């Protein structure tokens, strides 16, 4: 998080993490597509010829709250390929919240696990733990055959602490919900640490509603948050305080 007192501007860094080809970039593309003009800047993608992310993708989103605090969200992806370990570590540095994009297909389970361990290791290198980090998990590619069943995911999700979302990023399904869930968690953690709502007269509920609306989701925020199939959304993480 970066706070610019002069311009009353807060920049929050969100990172989409996950194994190669799980749909991180597709998530950002879907967000970019659904965002109102003016709310979203250009989506910057640094890709190789085969459309794989080379370093990261960067989507800037800007929202201005009634409390006159401008909130800029910078959404990053990391390159999923194993060889880009050093780049992943650089990008994940300073993240305020992380969305872990998992591939729902059964054959990809191992890759999901490896990538998650990699995330844990990279956070450790920066002196952080998973517990401290606002984190949601998205099971993407729900439309493909041979995916892990809804029941299986729901059962696993009910045991874990991280909110879990189901998505088909190529069709924009579940993308905004995941983002709002992540933002909700991230904001709660940042507010617990820096007392932002009070200091800036910030209305976080109205802010979430504004973000949802500008991302093209007219539903009320509580309804959007309910899209989560497990985990704890409303628990403030005490470790973050």
């Amino acid at each position: 998080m970066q706070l610019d007192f002069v311009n009353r501007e807060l920049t929050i860094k969100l990172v989409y993490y996950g194994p190669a080809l799980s749909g991180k970039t597709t998530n950002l593309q879907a967000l970019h597509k659904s965002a109102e003009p003016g709310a979203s800047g250009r989506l910057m993608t640094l890709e190789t010829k085969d459309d794989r992310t080379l370093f990261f993708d960067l989507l800037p989103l800007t929202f201005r709250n009634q409390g006159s605090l401008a909130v800029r969200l910078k959404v990053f992806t990391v390159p999923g390929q194993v060889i880009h370990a050093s780049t992943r570590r650089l990008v994940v540095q300073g993240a305020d919240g992380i969305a872990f994009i998992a591939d729902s297909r059964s054959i990809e389970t191992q890759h999901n696990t490896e990538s998650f361990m990699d995330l844990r290791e990279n956070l450790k290198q920066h002196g952080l733990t998973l517990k401290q980090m606002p984190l949601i998990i998205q099971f993407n590619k729900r439309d493909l055959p041979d995916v892990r069943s809804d029941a299986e995911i729901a059962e696993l999700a009910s045991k874990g602490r991280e909110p879990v979302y189901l998505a088909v990023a190529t069709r924009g399904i579940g993308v905004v919900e995941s983002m709002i869930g992540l933002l909700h968690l991230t904001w709660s953690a940042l507010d617990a640490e820096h007392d932002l709502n009070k200091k800036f007269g910030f209305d976080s509920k109205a802010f979430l509603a504004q973000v949802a609306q500008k991302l093209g989701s007219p539903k009320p925020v509580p309804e959007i948050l309910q899209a989560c199939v497990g985990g704890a959304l409303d628990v403030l993480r005490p470790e973050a305080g």
Partner: protein
Amino acid sequence: MLPPAAAKTFDELTLGHGVCLEDLIDRDALGEMVKSFYELFNVPLRIFSEEGKLLGDAADQIPLYAFLNSVKAGRAALSDVASKLKTLPLGEDGMASFLCSTGESYRVATIQYDGKRIGRMILGPFLALEVSEPPQTLLTLDSTLDAARLRELFQAMPRAEDDSVVKLVRHLQRTLDLLLFSGHRALLTSNMHLASVRESFRELEDKNEKLQTAFDRLKELDRLKSNFLATVSHELRTPLTSIIGYSEMLVEGLAGEMTGEQREFVQTIRDKGEQLLQLIKGLLDLSKLESGTMSLRKSQTDILTVLRDVAQTMTPTARKKEVDILVEVENGLPLIWADAERLRQVFLNLTENAIKFTPPSGKVTLSARITAIDAARSDDAGGVVILSARRTAVEFRVADTGIGIPEGERGRVFDAFYQVDSSSTREAGGTGLGLSIVRRLIDGHDGSVRIVDNTPKGTVFIVTIPVKRATIG
């Protein structure tokens, strides 16, 4: 490895606090674009960074301004306009217009990137279409200026409608935004390349450090092992000397006459004691060589003397096995820089080995001839042209007609305690230490040793030792 001083951190570059116009756009190319814009639309254009640095300018060709600059009052008026334009407050839409006291108009607009102002563009001066006469303020600026000329130059000023200028501004802003975006992306890419190389470098350094620590520890352990071996060998020799000495005295009858059987038993004790002493000496040598504490006393050494001496010493052993020993040395061989005693040990060892593995009526030949070696090691990848200064060397051969050494084993026979065939050892005796000591001694002479086949059967050990001290490598 430190990053270049000007390098910005990843966060500075991506979270939008460190990006400035000069970083993202090539200044020369921007200047060209500004000029081309002026040629196309006939509206002068200047571009400033947020700090007020002029980055692109196509306004210096205005004839009226050149004329005004020739007088003091004109210069003052123009500089007043210039400073006002740089600090003119801009409206909500990031734009403002400015009308000079001398009658011309300007349009000032912000250059934004990622929601932040990073510079401003100034379009003008231009005259609105409806302006026909220069204002009095211009005509009365300085009485020395020719009024007719002023009028003429004023009329020649670029003319534009404010609406069209606003459209031009919007177009320019979009064009610049695209350029800035591309510049930013390129900057980020190169920055990420650097950063990830630096990160990988750091990782490798970490690993290297760990390896170095492990390596140092192993070296220390190896040294301890050699020390231990040296101490133990030394301590073993002392009692052994007494065992050999007393059994010798017994055999010589110093303690009274012995029966034949007693003498035979004591003789066996003495022989085995001698064998054990040789083994311990070998271990001691090896540990000294391994720990690098054996010093070679090198001097100019005559090869023929060494080889003859070896042949003489080994003759009794050879006779016992009915093996002939021959010495063949080329005439006129030079003296070589070597430790004569250690060289003798090398060839004693090789000759003893050769005799051991040669069946009766075979022969062992010791020979020496002059040769040349390349100073460049054969496994060197390049620079042979430069490095292959040829050095004179002496090549020794110890050839036997024995059982031979299979090709696959030749590299390993020099390892300590290695035996090609342990059954032959039981028959022929030996500890497996000799050749490893031989190789280390030859290494100490900057020489080499290799094994080739003897025809029709047997083995040849070829030892090459340079004549002079090594000066390369």
